[in-house]
């Protein structure tokens, strides 16, 4: 799978910047306490932490599904904590998300599910179809283009969800446990897809507790524990093709 279009100068200097961000759900404890970090264009990170540490919550803040209780969040050089509601859809279209629970629409086929982001962006129907079925073939679902999610295995659903997240060639890709339901082989294949995207400038964050994944592919790691985030650089360079241009982020704290 090749994402052909490459662009010249990036449209923005910063993809994500958290400044002393705190988050608590109503009458619960603080999930995030004081989190600061920066993601630059073209960076590639793992987001790790024990179950319930707040990984999904952190991603939610990034895909604008949640507002922080305190602190400031800058996305694509814009302060989203102060942004107007009608500016958010534009920002969201630059972000691709693989949800931990897939969130596929059960009444649509795999093809239609993956096509959604293109439809919303107003793409032509012809273009959509060719593009979508190529991508689905790449994740190994060429035989199930017309299958509805309830008839797919969980690993298949996850791959549809991944295809939907990347189809729009987002500037920021957030994947929540994207290999939790697929085996290592397919997991590595998915990672290669993410690397392709990363090569053309997409910033990637993968939340996972799959230590084998983290230890196979050496990437800087955003580690969440007890509401705080620390950045860890890999011990040595990536053992994979060396194509993931992971830019060390200037982490906060």
């Amino acid at each position, binding site marked *: 799978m090749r994402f052909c279009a490459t662009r010249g100068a990036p449209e923005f200097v910063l993809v994500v910047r958290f400044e002393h961000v705190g988050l608590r759900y109503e009458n619960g404890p603080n999930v995030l306490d004081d989190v600061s970090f920066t993601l630059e264009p073209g960076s590639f990170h793992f987001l790790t932490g024990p179950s319930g540490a707040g990984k999904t919550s952190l991603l939610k803040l990034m*895909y*604008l*599904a*949640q*507002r922080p209780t305190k602190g400031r969040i800058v996305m694509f050089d814009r302060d989203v904590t102060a942004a107007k509601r*009608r500016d958010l*859809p*534009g*920002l*969201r*279209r630059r*972000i691709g*998300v693989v949800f931990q629970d897939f*969130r596929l*629409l059960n*009444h*649509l*086929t795999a*093809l*239609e599910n993956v*096509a*959604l*982001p293109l*439809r*919303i*962006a107003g793409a032509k*129907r012809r273009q*959509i*179809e060719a593009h979508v*079925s190529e991508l689905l073939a790449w994740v190994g679902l060429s035989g199930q*283009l*017309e299958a509805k999610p309830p008839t797919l295995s969980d690993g298949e659903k996850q791959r549809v969800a991944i295809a*939907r997240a990347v189809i729009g060639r987002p500037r920021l890709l957030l994947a929540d446990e994207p290999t939790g339901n697929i085996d290592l082989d397919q997991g590595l294949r998915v990672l290669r897809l993410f690397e392709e995207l990363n090569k053309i400038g997409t910033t990637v964050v993968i939340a996972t507790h799959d230590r084998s994944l983290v230890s196979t592919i050496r990437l800087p790691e955003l580690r969440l524990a007890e509401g705080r985030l620390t950045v860890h650089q890999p011990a040595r360079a990536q053992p994979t093709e060396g194509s993931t241009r992971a830019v060390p982020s200037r982490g906060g704290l």
Partner: protein
Amino acid sequence: MSLARSELQLHRDPTRRMVGFLIGAMVYLAALAVTGGLMVGTTINRWSDDLRGNLTVQLPGVTAAGAAEATGRIDTVVSTLLETQGVAGARALPRRELLSLLERWLGRGNIPDDLPIPALIDVTLEPGVRIDLDDLQRRLAREVPGARISDNGIVLDRLVRLAHSVQAAALAIVLLVGLAAVAIITFVTRAGLAMHHETIELLHLIGARNNYIARQFVRHVVGVALVGGILGLLAAAGTILGLARVAADIDVFRWPTISLADPQLVALLTLPLVAAVIAMVTARLTVAGALRRLP
């Protein structure tokens, strides 16, 4: 391999038939209530129109022999009446007519020629004019001693009150059905949206604008409301025509014959549109409310 028209696929919705049916039923009931109200109102208006602006002037009875002599007096009274402001017409009831009325009570052929029968003059007033009856009475009595005005005031009054009550009741029913329609459409739309909550949330999260989402719901609901409303109206038209045929057989109460060309009935044709507009507004507000609750 093809892409569906709309990602919400609302036309495959299980609530679809329900929405259509309920809107149809409400339009049906509203149409019947409006027609019923119109009919009763019109009927009573006719009844009271028959009486309103009607006076009867009565002259002392004369026997058959004195009838010719009485004609002069009758003419005097009629011309006095016609000169009075507000009187539209005055007509003496022919003796024959009076006799036939009396025969009802006295039996045919039982009326002796020497029975002194009063002369009755039917007076029509111009609509909306109130005449000083006391003054008229005095003037008439001066011209023809014994002339008396008998007023239908009491009966008229009763009928007018009845007409108002019935019209108020009809209005109340129409309002009630209308409110029920709004409530039902609101509830059904909300239930539909609750079913689609996850879809709406996902579309929102991947960057769909509110308009994009609302449009699909509105288009769907309006279509269903129009179809349901039109079917409901057709059913109502069928029922009304059926009842009209039955009513036409019965003229005891002087029901007005129903004509579908009646402008007020033509207004009924807009009911499906009204339903569609209610549905549209409800759907738009509900979707907007649901979207406002999202981040």
